[in-house]
């Protein structure tokens, strides 16, 4: 698949989605504050579960999962949410309960995962080099788009892309051994983190569970190869980028099945001469229709991925 720099409007419109539904992280009614509900999923591994939805004012943009790993030097925080205010709430929890913040990692460059970085600019904020570059290139447009969707929730939010590029490999922070895993497929650079002590895999958006995957920057073939390698890790537990904690391998199986289902659906559509609108009207693959953020994620994905499928199916028959 060829990749090119997205234009401003594609960033604005392709990188984020609009939808409405109920939420898991309940935004308090009166003021725009986040009621975080961190829970320990393994020894010293805390998870804050995002709403299994698209970005929307009703969920305050709190749609992705956040992980905090306790160390002797404070918490290692994986992803920081969509807004400065969410980042501040996260920081407050880490400061009060986990002895401060040792470091922050951003799993990839999509804005729901790192626009909360603002609360951590006095700490090292790390990501894979390509994620860092993509966040730098798109940050301003992402912020504009999220202001349009989230309104008040975004007040005071400015993009602070990760400042340090990290390489995959083992790393010890505050006595805690982590393995940084560099993959691609959901985006051009996807970081997953394995906590060696508990065998917990913090997967970022390489894995989704019960929430339709978003594919604005997807390379499905690469993504499926990444899933093979994640499966080989045999993690004791998995925190997907979106969706509940998984101890059964369901997130891997479901993400793979969704990608295969979508790929198959698109290939059939273009080889039968359908138009993207017809593929949209067909609706999501039935077995995935009830997932969070569907059908809107399916609709978005058809628009985002259509041309690359169709140009494979239509031979060149002429020109200038």
């Amino acid at each position, binding site marked *: 698949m060829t990749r090119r720099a997205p234009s401003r409007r594609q960033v604005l419109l392709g990188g984020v*989605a609009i939808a409405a539904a109920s939420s898991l992280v309940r935004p308090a009614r009166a003021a725009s504050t986040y009621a975080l509900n961190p829970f320990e999923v393994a020894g010293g591994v805390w998870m804050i579960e995002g709403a299994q939805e698209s970005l929307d004012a009703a969920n305050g943009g709190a749609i992705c999962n956040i992980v905090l790993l306790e160390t002797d030097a404070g918490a290692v925080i994986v992803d920081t949410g969509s807004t400065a205010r969410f980042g501040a709430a996260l920081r407050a929890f880490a400061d009060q309960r986990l002895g401060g913040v040792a470091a922050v990692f951003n799993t990839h460059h999509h804005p729901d995962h790192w626009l909360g970085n603002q609360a951590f600019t006095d700490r090292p904020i790390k990501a894979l080099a390509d994620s860092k570059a993509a966040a730098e290139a798109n940050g301003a447009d992402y912020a504009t788009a999220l202001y349009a969707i989230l309104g008040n929730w975004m007040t005071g939010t400015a993009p602070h892309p990760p400042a340090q590029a990290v390489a995959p490999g083992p790393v010890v922070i505050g006595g805690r051994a982590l393995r940084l895993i560099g993959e691609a497929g959901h985006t051009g650079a996807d970081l997953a983190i394995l906590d060696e002590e508990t065998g917990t895999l913090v997967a970022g958006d390489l894995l989704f569970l019960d929430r339709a995957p978003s594919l604005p920057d997807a390379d499905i073939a690469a993504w499926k190869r990444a899933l093979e390698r994640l499966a080989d890790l045999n993690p004791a537990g998995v925190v997907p980028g979106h969706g509940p904690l998984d101890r059964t391998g369901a997130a891997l199986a479901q993400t793979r099945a969704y990608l295969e289902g979508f790929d198959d659906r698109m290939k059939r559509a273009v080889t039968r001469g359908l138009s993207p609108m017809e593929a949209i009207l067909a609706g999501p693959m039935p077995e995935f229709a009830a997932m969070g953020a569907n059908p809107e994620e399916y609709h978005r994905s058809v628009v985002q991925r259509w041309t690359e499928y*169709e140009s494979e199916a239509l*031979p060149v028959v*002429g*020109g200038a």
Partner: protein
Amino acid sequence: MWPLHREEYLGGPRDWQQDAAVLTLAPSAAEDAAHVPLIVDATGIEGQVRRIVVTIDYSPIPLVLTFHPGRALPLLGFGVKYETGSALRASVEREDGSWAMGATYVAAMGGGCTAPAAAHARPDWQERLGEIRARLWPDTGRLRVSLRHPMDTGLAPGIAAHHLTELELASGDGETIARLELHEPVEENPALTFLLPAALARRPVTITARDNLGYRFEGRVEAQS
């Protein structure tokens, strides 16, 4: 807007009405304002269709295209650029001069018409300008055609208007099947769906197109199951 557009683009016909038989299928919200996929289907209309005029109420350039289906069925799949949330209308003129109109509303966050074409971000876009991809399905009569073209509206700062103006389908003997007049709001690298009757779908079809700078593009597609 609609009364004005009726006057300007349809010539102010007296005999017109909204008609549910003119299907205008579009997503309720634009995922990408530069590529809003649509289908206009007037196959349910009684009487021969002379032309279909597609307009967008609130667009800096309201006229999208005029489709003369000729010997093809009055159905067209295509994509448009949207600058703001607005109704899109398909006005169908029958042979007797009466009009039937179908409409749909698309919510959009904007930037579809005033943003530069994505092509300008690629170094090779001029080389492949006008490249035509197409496939014809004899059993279903479907013809899908895509053309590489920036479809610049002239509204993006510093980029002159450069867009397709005409596209014609002809049978092997050179006889016109269908004709399209294209305007600025048609999407970049437009991809079009036509429906041909079986007799035409089993034989080669030539595709010719022109743009406002005088470039001419041509291709030929043969039925392929």
